[in-house]
């Protein structure tokens, strides 16, 4: 274990490393309770249909089958979803996408489980289905959720600044383009998994790979009709999340199974194929941009129309749209702007939370528009961005005040002075035979937290243990981003301890305190702020108690360090265990509730958009640079070099910061070049990792990371969330590099080798 005395700012080794690398750390998928039953779902094979009959009689008495459940076995409301509860745990009247669960089987082993699932007969009356959001908005489109005033429109609205229609005609240069963005699969290594059991006292305890244990509990109480105080959810370390485990995945089915298993534990662990079928995805969409500027390089007008396909159920399709709209003007001042957004139901897989949450889709378009427009006025694309980039105190084109730390300009400047940028001309001209080269950049931002949608509150709890060590009661699940290790670092800093003085309890609705979701780049920002304050409270209490015990006169005469107090005037050393022993148990526990600040302006946008989280207040910023080399014979794109300059406030842990930058950039590269999610009329064509292509270690380069450290005063030790900004810019940076290499922009992503070669061929023929 490490013994750094001042952990903040140092690369304190993650405390979860040893357990994970020795194979001893247990994920939700790793639990095999005694005498457990497997649970598995029978899912719809129609994209849109009425359920006429569910016949479970062929399987109910199969050997090895414990029970078969349908919606009739659900006592509660049978609806989950946040913010809108429109998704059944088991479909009752209709199925709305291929993957909608209709029946749940409990079995002794996986073989007989699958046999039973195959044998259940469901009679459907197929309904006309719709797979395109524009078609779903049309007059006579089939309705997914009848009785909605807005029909297939989940959320729509506009943001208006000035008069962009008129202003566009006053521009000296205008560019217009239509961008197509695909679904993206989270593809975490640990698929959705969990175990559940109802004990003798009727407590339903669930261990699940979830980003939202407290919210899950609330949803389960409502959906299953079980008392809230008799539900317990525990979130061990997740084997990845990225937003795909933000909400109910298997927990509803697990809870239902456990309520019908005669007290036996139940386990559910989605196969990779079932994860593809049933999990949420990044919203695909079309983004239309019209962007105009004056010849002095000033951006003047922008029209943007965003249409997102939110799939069969609402999930977070409203908030994703709102965030997309909020980020549609990127990091630029644009006096006249019109942003229209539509989040539309279709019979496609459900769109939900995915790292970036709407920002990748709009920045993909905007940042390519910036290059196109820069070229039109013969401006250097980086200088063009610098000319228009916001500073603190500015409003973006979406009308969002940059009221907090804003260091996009220093990020751009870091790129501007970097050899990868300054040598670009020479590098491009040195392209080997049969290769084309280009260098592309992109700049952007990401709001931290929930915005004005729901209160962002974290409740930290930290305890001085009788032996003088400390226990942190984590409130936010750790899906790999390292917020738990960072909690140790924060507490160690405040309390003057080394990392080995701390224990961590993972989020557990019985033992730790509600602290919001592991999402929205808020996990260290919110919980860290709460923990810092709770630790400070505890520290003051310890020092005061030392005075109380007659060890000294003034609290400020004591120095807290690893396992002890030093009384500076006398040189006396007091073991922390002694101070702990003099405290009542309730005195050794410190709790602090932190509520993140919210942007309360503007109020001049559609209230539904506002309620979905527009706008945020604290933003992270970044600009990325990609040097790409295209193989003229195959169309394959190689990313030769990649640079990220990031403003996420102060760096608490350089190694952890880099982990996020590198990992996010590569996940963004996947979105840019390889991850071509294919559907045909609601049927998955890419249904596993053999056909949905993730980048391997041979496909991506080393990534250079530069930290531009602004001071975010509202964040613990000056930091801001970094989890999402890191994925937002790979696609546009690479797209811009490819455009410079090839001589034209490509508007449909991913930018596959196939697409590129066919374009190169077409260009050669002309």
């Amino acid at each position: 274990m490490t013994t750094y005395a001042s952990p903040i700012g140092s690369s304190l080794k993650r405390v979860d490393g040893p357990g994970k690398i020795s194979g001893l750390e247990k994920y939700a998928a790793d639990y095999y309770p005694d005498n457990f039953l497997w649970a598995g779902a029978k899912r719809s094979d129609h994209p849109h249909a009425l359920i006429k009959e569910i016949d479970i009689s062929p399987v109910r008495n199969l050997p090895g089958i414990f029970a078969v459940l349908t919606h009739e076995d659900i006592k509660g409301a049978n609806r989950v979803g946040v913010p809108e509860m429109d998704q059944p745990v088991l479909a009752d009247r209709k199925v709305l996408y291929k993957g909608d669960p209709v029946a749940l089987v409990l079995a002794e082993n996986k073989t007989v489980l699958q046999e039973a699932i195959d044998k259940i007969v469901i009679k459907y009356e197929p309904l006309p289905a719709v797979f395109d959001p524009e078609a779903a908005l049309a007059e006579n489109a089939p309705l997914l959720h009848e009785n909605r005033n807005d029909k297939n429109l989940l959320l729509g609205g506009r943001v208006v600044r000035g008069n962009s229609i008129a202003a566009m005609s006053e521009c000296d240069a205008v560019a217009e383009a239509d961008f197509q963005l695909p679904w993206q699969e989270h593809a975490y290594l640990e698929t959705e998994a969990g175990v559940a059991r109802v004990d003798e006292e009727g407590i339903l305890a669930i261990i699940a790979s979830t980003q939202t244990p407290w919210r899950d509990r609330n949803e389960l109480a409502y959906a299953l009709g079980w008392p809230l105080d008799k539900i317990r959810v525990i979130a061990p370390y997740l084997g990845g999340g990225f937003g795909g485990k933000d909400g109910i995945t298997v927990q509803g089915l697990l809870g239902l199974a456990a309520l019908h298993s005669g007290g036996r534990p139940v386990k559910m662990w989605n196969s990779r194929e079932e994860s593809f079928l049933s999990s949420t995805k990044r919203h695909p969409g079309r983004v239309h941009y019209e962007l105009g500027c004056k010849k002095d390089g000033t951006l003047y007008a922008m029209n943007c129309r965003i249409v997102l396909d939110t799939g069969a159920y609402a999930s977070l399709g409203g908030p994703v749209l709102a965030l997309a709209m909020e980020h549609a003007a990127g990091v630029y001042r644009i006096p006249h702007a019109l942003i229209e957004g539509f989040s539309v139901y279709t019979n496609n897989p459900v769109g939900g939370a995915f790292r970036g949450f709407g920002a990748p889709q709009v920045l993909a378009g905007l940042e390519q528009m910036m290059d196109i427009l820069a070229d039109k006025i013969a401006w250097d694309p980086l200088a063009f961005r610098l000319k228009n980039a916001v500073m603190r105190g500015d409003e973006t084109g979406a009308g969002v005040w940059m009221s907090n730390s804003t260091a996009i300009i220093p990020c751009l400047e870091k790129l501007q002075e970097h050899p990868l940028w300054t040598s670009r001309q020479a590098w491009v001209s040195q392209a080997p035979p049969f290769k084309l080269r280009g260098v592309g950049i992109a700049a952007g931002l990401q709001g931290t937290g929930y915005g004005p949608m729901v209160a962002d509150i974290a409740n930290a709890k930290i305890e001085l243990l009788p032996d003088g060590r400390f226990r942190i009661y984590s409130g936010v699940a750790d899906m790999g981003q390292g917020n738990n290790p960072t909690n140790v670092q924060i507490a160690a800093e405040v309390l003057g301890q080394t990392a080995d003085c701390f224990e961590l309890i993972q989020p557990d609705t019985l033992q730790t305190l509600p602290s919001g979701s592991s999402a929205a780049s808020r996990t260290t920002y919110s919980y860290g702020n709460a923990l810092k304050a709770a630790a400070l409270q505890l520290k003051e209490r310890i020092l005061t108690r030392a005075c109380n015990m007659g060890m000294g006169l003034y609290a400020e005469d004591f120095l807290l360090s690893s396992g002890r107090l030093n009384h500076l005037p006398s040189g006396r050393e007091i073991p922390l265990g002694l101070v702990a022993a003099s405290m009542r148990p309730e005195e050794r526990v410190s709790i602090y509730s932190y509520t993140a600040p919210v942007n309360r302006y503007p109020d001049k946008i559609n209230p539904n958009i506002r309620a979905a989280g527009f706008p945020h207040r604290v933003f992270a910023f970044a600009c990325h640079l990609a040097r790409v080399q295209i193989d003229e014979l195959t169309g394959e794109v190689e990313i030769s070099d990649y640079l990220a300059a990031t403003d996420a406030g102060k760096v608490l842990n350089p190694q952890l910061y880099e982990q996020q930058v590198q990992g996010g950039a590569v996940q963004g590269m996947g979105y840019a070049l390889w991850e071509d999610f294919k559907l045909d009329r609601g049927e998955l064509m890419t249904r596993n990792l053999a056909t949905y292509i993730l980048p391997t270690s041979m496909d991506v380069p080393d990534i250079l990371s530069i930290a531009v450290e602004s001071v975010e005063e509202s964040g613990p030790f000056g930091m801001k969330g970094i989890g999402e900004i890191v994925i937002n810019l790979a696609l546009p940076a690479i797209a811009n590099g490819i455009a410079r290499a090839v001589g034209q922009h490509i508007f449909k992503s991913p930018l596959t080798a196939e697409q590129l070669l066919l374009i190169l061929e077409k260009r050669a023929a002309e």
Partner: protein
Amino acid sequence: MSQVFLPHTLEELWTIKQENPAALIMAGGTDLLVKIRDRKLPPAVILALENIAELRQIERQDGEICIGSMVTHQQLLDSPIIQTQLPVLHQAVAVLGSPPIRHMGTIGGNICTASPAGDTLPPLYVLNAGLELKNAAAGRLLPIQDFIQGPGQTLLGSNEILYKIRIPIPAPHSHGFYFKVGQRKALAIAICSMASLLQFAEDKRILEGRFAWGSTGPTVMRFPEVENTLIGEKLSPIILGRLGQSMAALVSPISDVRASAEYRRLLASKLPLKIWQSLI
């Protein structure tokens, strides 16, 4: 499924096969077990060949290289004989699958799976490989292009195994080359692949050129009439470009989830230039 047999000798194998005529032969398991998981094959009795040492040899004899059917791709990669004598095959197994797949997968399995995308196949076609099949009673030799009839279809008899692959050692100063386009750089099924074997005279003119194409038709394909047009020519981008155009007109790719027919055909027209690119 349920029963799994792992005989140590061919004699044991024949006995088990006779008692379990419907048993599925398993080589490395990397294709078979995935097919069973995907429910493309029903669970059945498995007859695994991995313990039969006789099938794991690489030998050079009488102007031929003999490779046992259960030789793994990693064994081929590690073999100095393969590296020096059959570089076209060596290049192919270097880009096949991934390291653990290469530790498990076998050349015999790759052949009998008979996917048009199988990486060892185009090299074996240009090497004019012969396949020795055996059953309890006898053996027979078939050229690989006759053995593979279509995607997943071979002439392997229900009581036969693939025993050995026999490859005539290429003439000295041959140039073997394999290039594969996949959707990424590893763990990638070939979308279009090309193996070439060129033999040069002293004056650098081509004496013989063989080209085999993967993932562009129901089986690996060769076009002897186009190959013949190379004879007497010197290698150049123009010659290779023309060759590519001719071959691309003759391949018959399909569109699937990985790539369109149009892209595959376009790749076929370009891949011969990869030979040039590798030489400059």
